[in-house]
């Protein structure tokens, strides 16, 4: 396992994490010293958003640009060296062989994850607060993302004849998901729905402490499909035509499974700030809004108000009312030339027999409209329900030494020790 590519990844992930962590702690400290802790600004002082999301983004970078090479080295290296021709003579099923390789790679990733864990330890030493559920979700999100990368790279390494082709294929898929994200931002609609399952989107949700079961299930399907296709193409003695047929069967089965799992609506907001949820009294009251509830949003995909509405209000509403049907209506991408249109900018809330129109795109504005629509009285804001945040005006003392000095030295020493031990 101890390939050079893995040692390189291990070496780089330390300084990458350190750079992100030091910068995040410094910014968090500056804001904590200059700000305050009044209600309403608490979210800005949540370590999940202020420190852990940027720190763990080093993992995202490593998963996109370093981990594929480790995985490809492990799978394609065997083919290049001829080891695969020997290994294939063992009666072990190909899927078990591929699963074993994927497990080794995931273990390698977990070892590399020691870098952000070190950051957590440093944060604790600085006197920072840790909320285990949201950190656990973030860690799990990056682990799933790594699993996805490993499965994709394993499949690419098995399907192609040369590691460089596999690397190009893997990076093409990564870039392809970015294009999908871009298309979703520009065109909305089905692109938006598909983009919800890209690694970037999935990781972003975990970074906000939101665990969506549909995303998790879809990732499991994609990981299984990647490993399955990798196993199919690993069997060199099977005719290509049969391998193509089996691969198509895996792809079709995966599409059906993804289609089914995409309908799952269960989700958990594990963030301490409950950043993905309305207050509990609001959530209880929203259940009393009559069904079916329909919302028509007359905003173009690139209109910042639509982005605000989606992120700050509708995402929360969908969690508590999965039955809500939201339709986006626009004739252009930017909305610039629709401003003069009769209904542009309006949001129509509709229940049987009643409709009201609003232009507010904030969560409070939406709640106000919904309560008015249902004839409900908004609950009084509970003081206990407000997340006060955890400001920490600390300097990232010692972090530079740990991530830029001790980490690389320790990895280098471990690599040397490992190579000597093998001799």
């Amino acid at each position, binding site marked *: 396992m101890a390939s050079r590519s893995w040692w390189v990844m291990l070496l780089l992930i330390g300084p990458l994490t350190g750079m992100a962590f030091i910068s995040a702690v410094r910014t968090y400290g500056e804001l904590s010293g200059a700000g305050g802790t009044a209600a309403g600004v608490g979210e800005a002082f949540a370590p999940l958003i202020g420190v852990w999301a940027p720190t763990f983004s080093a993992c995202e970078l490593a998963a996109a640009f370093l981990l594929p090479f480790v995985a490809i080295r492990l799978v394609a290296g065997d083919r290049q060296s001829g080891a695969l021709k020997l290994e294939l003579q*063992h*009666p072990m099923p190909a899927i078990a062989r591929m699963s074993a390789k994927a497990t080794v790679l995931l273990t390698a990733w977990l070892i590399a994850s020691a870098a952000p864990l070190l950051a957590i330890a440093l944060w604790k030493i600085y006197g920072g607060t840790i909320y285990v559920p949201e950190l656990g979700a973030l860690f799990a999100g990056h682990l799933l993302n790594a699993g996805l990368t490993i499965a994709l790279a394993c499949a690419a390494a098995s399907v192609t004849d040369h590691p460089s082709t596999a690397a190009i294929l893997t990076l093409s898929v990564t870039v392809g998901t970015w294009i999908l994200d871009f298309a979703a931002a520009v065109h909305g609609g089905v692109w938006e729905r598909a983009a919800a399952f890209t690694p970037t989107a999935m990781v972003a949700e975990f970074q906000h402490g939101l665990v969506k079961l549909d995303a998790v299930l879809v990732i499991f399907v994609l990981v299984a499909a990647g490993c399955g296709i990798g196993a199919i193409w690993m069997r060199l*003695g*099977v005719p290509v035509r049969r391998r193509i047929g089996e691969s198509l069967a895996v792809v079709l089965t995966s599409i059906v499974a993804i289609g089914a799992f995409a309908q799952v609506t269960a989700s958990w907001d594990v963030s301490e700030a409950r950043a993905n949820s309305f207050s509990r009294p609001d959530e209880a009251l929203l259940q009393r809004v009559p069904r079916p509830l329909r919302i028509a949003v007359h905003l173009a995909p690139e209109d910042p108000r639509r982005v605000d509405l989606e992120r700050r209000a509708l995402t929360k509403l969908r969690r508590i009312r999965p039955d809500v049907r939201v339709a986006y209506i626009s004739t252009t991408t930017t909305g610039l030339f629709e401003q003069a249109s009769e209904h542009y900018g309006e949001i129509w809330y509709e229940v049987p027999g009643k409709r009201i129109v609003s232009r507010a795109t904030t969560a409070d504005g939406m709640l106000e409209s919904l309560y008015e629509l249902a004839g409900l009285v908004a609950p009084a804001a509970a003081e206990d329900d407000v997340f006060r945040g955890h400001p920490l005006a600390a300097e990232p003392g010692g972090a530079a030494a740990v991530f830029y000095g001790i980490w690389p030295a320790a990895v280098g020493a471990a690599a040397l020790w490992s190579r000597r031990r*093998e001799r």
Partner: protein
Amino acid sequence: MASGLRVSELDKRYGSLAALSGVSLTVREGEVLGLIGPNGAGKTTLFECVAGVLPADRGTVMVNGRPVPALGRGAHLFYMPDGIAPWPSQTAGWILDFAIGFFGGDPARRTAVVDRLQIAPLLGRRLGHLSKGERKRVLLAVAMLTPQPLLMADEPFDGLDLKQSREAAAALRDHAAGGRTVFLSIHQIGDAMRTCDRFVLLSGGRVCGEGTAGELAALARSRGAAPDGFEEVVLALT
């Protein structure tokens, strides 16, 4: 493998090139069979198709009279390809131990095989750092430590000097005498003569003859040739 391995009507094409055409042969239990043929005859393709690491277009491989699918042949035979350097960052000793563990070989035989092939000084070195001949001897040791009844080795003497070739040939003969069937693809006629009981001649993807040196000489004579020595027999038939 009570009654050997039978290959019947094996075909393999690479696009428009027919690498193997209707190849049939028999490997008898306990013998050392040599596959001889010029460059491009299809020897490696035949070995890989028989071993199940390359899909054949047509044909069957039978063990004990029963057809064995490609994915199931690992239980009956072990194939050592030519020109490979598996697990190059691992030491030769690690590779021998891995092969014993992975393929279920007998660890008690490790020392004897290492001594027989004189690879003890290589055990602590990485396979990727060995010379071609050293690597070949280590991989031959791997092959000899595997437990399958039939051992197939592609060009087992390639890269070895004369002394090493003779020692390796003797080791393989002793190995076969210990009860294992051996099927070798050999380029050099001298090596083949030293090692094998019988021969299969392959040329242009077709079998041109199968039998002992005497039987093949008789076959050559029946076709009007007057061969002087086994090299002449091979040239006359291929």
